[in-house]
């Protein structure tokens, strides 16, 4: 991996937790479901399996909580929802991100597409 690729990967990995929080804003969701949504955004999620350690971290940090739900078609499935702390973290991130984006956009405005 080149330095540039590594930097971009770090950038994506940094925002991924907040993307997950954003996806949980409207309703609780299953991990499989979250992965599907994330996969629609190019390059955001390179390894689907890593959603599970990520969700576990979010759970330990008390930004999400999970509940096991009985499934008629197989083993019980875990679904995730935002906690109050998670909502707060997401709101905070959104503000930071917008400011950051605006600043970077200004800097690269002259860079040809």
């Amino acid at each position: 991996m080149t330095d540039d690729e590594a930097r971009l990967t770090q950038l994506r990995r940094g925002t991924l937790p907040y993307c997950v929080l954003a996806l949980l804003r409207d309703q609780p969701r299953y991990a499989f479901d979250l992965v599907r949504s994330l996969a629609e955004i190019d390059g955001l999620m390179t390894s689907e399996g890593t959603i599970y350690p990520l969700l576990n971290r979010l759970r330990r940090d008390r930004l999400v909580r999970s509940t096991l739900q009985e499934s008629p078609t197989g083993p019980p499935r875990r679904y995730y929802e935002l906690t109050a702390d998670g909502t707060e973290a997401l709101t905070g991130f959104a503000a930071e991100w917008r400011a950051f984006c605006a600043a970077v956009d200004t800097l690269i405005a002259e860079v040809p597409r």
Partner: protein
Amino acid sequence: MTDPAADALVGDFLDVLQDELAAVPAERRRELTAEIAGHIAQARAELPDGGDADEVALLLDRIGDPADIARDARDEDEHEAPPQQRRGGWIEGLALVLLPLGGLVIPVIGWFAGVVLLWASNAWTTREKLVGTFVIPGGYSFLLAGTLLVTAGPGGSCSQELSPVGEPIGSEVCTDTGGGVGPVVEVLLLVLLVVLLVAPIASALFLGLRLRRRNRIPTLVGA
């Protein structure tokens, strides 16, 4: 009626994943492996007959390298360290009070209670804790003793004449020889007294400032 070749691929994948997760606590390892296995099952359920070998290979490729998943799983534990936990709770506050002042209430033991809280807290680094412990041991426990030592000044002496069989003759004679120990020692004792006065508060201030500074740095759920 799933394709046995596809099943074999899944089995191998999960085996490799388990191996890679060796460094992770057993319970978490089991849980994560089950989650990934469930994920694979759900993905295969969308394919006819659970997918053939090629389709499953593609699926597993999207799930990613077991080594990457295991690395993220190991990183879960790293963040149990201080940065993620609340700081400035009652333990910290009480420690900051007991370290200098505990010794005034119950000499040594009061201070020691502060030491126990200091080390129980996760808000300070080991080095900071060492400073808090050894500057100064006892806190103000010895302030009283130190003050008496300096102000009384071992400049006087008492003597008692004794008979050949050890019985006192006459009364005790005490003489105050004034600066009996000489100015140098007096100065040293004074310096010691100043140190005893300043160090415990300085140490508590140091710990308090470190706490405040650490609380200001926002913590994010990191990559």
